[in-house]
């Protein structure tokens, strides 16, 4: 088998997307749906089939040249190595299940072709990010996921808020993309190549100061896509999109693209101590910020959105602490359980009669299907970090890496991480209690949902619960298999004495218990939500939107008004209109010459003749005897 066949992995979803775009609406509904499934399922099966290529150094495959001009040589190159292979498997696998769910979820939607083609296009763009061996191809995918995210958030664009949320996501992530673009061009200027493997190989030749600046640029780029501070305001509003979109793009895959980018360029990024501290710092602050916001949210999907932000913050902390395997471990487990949480939330909203507010739900454990309760609970305990679940092991690994990093700064990050874990446990169980406990408070009538909306949750929930097996720490008898698998790419080996590890595990367990206890005491029986200034502040996400509005949007609008009213309408239009008036007056003067009277013309003719005659006579006199 030729390694060029690796290109089938991204091209399969792309071709299905194109077919659906062109012909989707003319075909019977079953065909676009089947095509969409086939695209991602095929990519998933191919990834398993080609798994052997990832062994060792991995495989680079080149399909052809895209751009070739002077020293610029951009080729369609794939890198299927130990970092990209598990990520590809996760993305295609989760995407396949979510596609199945989406078919059930969107069964009444008339615009199915647009939905499924965008979803497939998204998978293609995401795979381009993951598999690219060329930063320009990666950037192409990076913009592609942004585009699909925009199109899918605003999928129901007839409602104005949805369209605005899509635009907001597009614009805010674009800010990060600009920085990423600068970083790419700078890297090209320094190394003369855009190939990721070559840049990583040459990273040590770049001077340390520039590496720090490059790392910070990459960090801002990653922040935009991964909704980290200060470019995080779009993610909560992105929940306006259909639930399968939230599950796929805004929980499992796209928002982790920033983490993946930093892991991909880890050999470069890890050279800068300051950059690493900045990455961990951004992650820590975002984790804490988002967790506090999640405490006060009323809409189920917004709680999950903030928890996503918070968990991605943990992944950033892991990268900052130097452990790629830790970050990727949390990325994988998080993708599983967060996708389940979102899909289950879609189910919950459906049962509650399209009601989003968790304070108007309740009683679903008794009245709703048992299946839903157990699945939701399984994913929730993963999120909360209850011992032995996947989320527990991955989060614990990150906290251990932070703790053993050595410097006092990282101890501070660890403290933030631990406190965030407490908040996470609290808001997760608050969500569970409000949705499932007590009596129904809404009008929703329990009814059956299509089978396609039920069974894709099972494998993901099991994966989330058992995700710890991927990278079981040595002290509980595991082999750290993920860390071993990554080999050279895994980053720092986190070593600690078993006593310390047990201590941290005990602490983490205690924290989860405290979080659960607090939530249990507060929400065991339903109470009205608090309405004080603190909760309003948290509900509004620390007023981040208002701050952005004051700092950026309003000055920009004022500048626009100034340019429009002050410059354009006064200065430019005034000048131009003045010129028009001036030439109008002059032409009026000239107009008076054309009287239409024959005698005037004749006398003008005679006078002109006389002047010409005089002129020639004068020349004749002056010119002498020529």
């Amino acid at each position, binding site marked *: 088998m030729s390694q060029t066949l690796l290109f089938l992995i991204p091209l399969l979803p792309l071709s299905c997307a194109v077919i659906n775009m062109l012909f989707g609406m003319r075909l019977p509904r079953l065909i676009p749906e089947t095509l969409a499934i086939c695209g991602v399922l095929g990519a998933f099966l191919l990834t398993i089939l080609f798994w052997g290529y990832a062994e060792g150094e991995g495989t680079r495959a080149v399909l052809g040249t895209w751009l070739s001009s002077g020293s610029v040589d951009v080729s369609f190159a794939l890198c299927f190595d130990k970092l990209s292979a598990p990520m590809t498997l996760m993305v295609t696998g989760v995407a396949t299940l979510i596609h199945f769910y989406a078919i059930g979820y969107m069964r009444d939607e008339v615009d199915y072709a647009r939905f499924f083609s965008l979803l497939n296009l998204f998978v293609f763009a995401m795979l381009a990010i993951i598999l690219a061996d060329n930063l320009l191809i990666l950037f192409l995918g990076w913009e592609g996921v942004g585009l699909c995210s925009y199109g899918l958030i605003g999928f129901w664009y007839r409602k104005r808020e949805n369209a605005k949320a899509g635009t907001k996501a597009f614009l805010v992530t674009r800010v990060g993309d600009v920085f990423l673009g600068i970083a790419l061009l700078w890297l090209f200027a320094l190394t003369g190549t855009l190939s990721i493997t070559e840049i990583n190989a040459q990273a040590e030749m770049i001077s340390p100061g520039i590496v720090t600046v490059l790392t910070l640029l990459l960090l801002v780029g990653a922040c935009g896509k991964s909704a980290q501070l200060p470019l995080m305001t779009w993610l909560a509003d992105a929940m306006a999109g259909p639930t399968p979109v939230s599950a796929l793009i805004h929980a499992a895959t796209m928002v982790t693209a920033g983490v993946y980018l930093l892991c991909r360029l880890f050999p470069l990024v890890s050279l800068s101590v300051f950059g690493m501290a900045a990455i961990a710092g951004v992650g820590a602050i975002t984790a804490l910020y988002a967790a506090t916001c999640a405490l006060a949210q009323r809409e189920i999907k917004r709680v999950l959105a903030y928890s996503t932000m918070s968990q991605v913050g943990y992944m950033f902390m892991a990268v900052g602490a130097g452990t790629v395997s830790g970050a990727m471990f949390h990325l994988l487990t998080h993708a599983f359980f967060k996708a389940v949480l979102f899909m289950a939330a879609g189910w919950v909203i459906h049962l509650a009669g399209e009601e989003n507010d968790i304070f108007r739900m309740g009683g679903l454990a008794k009245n709703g299907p048992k299946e839903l309760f157990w699945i939701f609970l399984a994913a929730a305990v993963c999120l909360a970090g209850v011992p032995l679940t996947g989320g527990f092991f991955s989060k614990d690994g990150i906290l251990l890496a932070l703790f053993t990093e050595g410097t006092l700064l990282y101890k501070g990050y660890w403290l933030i991480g631990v406190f965030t874990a407490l908040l996470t446990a609290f808001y997760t169980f608050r969500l569970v209690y409000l949705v499932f406990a007590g009596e129904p408070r809404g009008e929703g009538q329990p009814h059956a949902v299509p089978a396609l909306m039920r069974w894709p949750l099972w494998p993901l929930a099991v994966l989330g619960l058992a995700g710890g097996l991927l990278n079981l720490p040595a002290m509980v008898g595991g082999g750290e298999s993920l860390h071993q698998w990554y080999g050279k790419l895994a980053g720092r080996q986190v070593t600690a004495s078993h006593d310390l590890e047990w201590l941290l595990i005990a602490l983490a367990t205690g924290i989860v218990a405290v979080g659960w206890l607090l939530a249990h005491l507060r929400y065991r029986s339903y109470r009205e939500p608090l309405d004080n200034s603190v909760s309003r502040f948290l509900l509004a996400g620390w007023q981040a939107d208002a701050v952005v509005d004051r700092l950026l949007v309003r000055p920009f609008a004022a500048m626009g008004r100034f340019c429009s009213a002050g410059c354009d309408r006064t200065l430019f239009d005034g000048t131009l209109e003045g010129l028009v008036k001036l030439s109008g007056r002059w032409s009026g003067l000239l*107009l*008076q*010459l*054309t*009287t*239409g*009277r*024959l*005698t005037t013309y*004749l*006398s003008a003719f*005679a006078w002109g003749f006389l002047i010409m005659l005089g002129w020639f006579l004068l020349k004749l006199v002056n010119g002498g005897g020529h």
Partner: protein
Amino acid sequence: MMIPFGHALAFAAALFILGLTCVLARRQIIMILIGVEIMLNAASLVFIAASAYWQQADGQVFVILLMAITAAEVAVALAMVVYLWRRKKTMIADQFNGMRG
């Protein structure tokens, strides 16, 4: 006895000025046309005189051509005068100011 060339030129110039004055001073279309004819005749006179002075026949040939053209011009011009009279019942040139800007 030959008339001196200078006399002929002076007479032609005087005739030309008279014709020009007629064209410029009169308001009647017919009178303007007569002025134009006088100016043309002055020009013909210069041709004749020059032909006699240099003993060349070209000038006389040219004058015959000029007469033919003048006859045609007058025919067209009078036809237009008749047409203009029918339109406005006037012969004053300034009344026809339809080309006014």
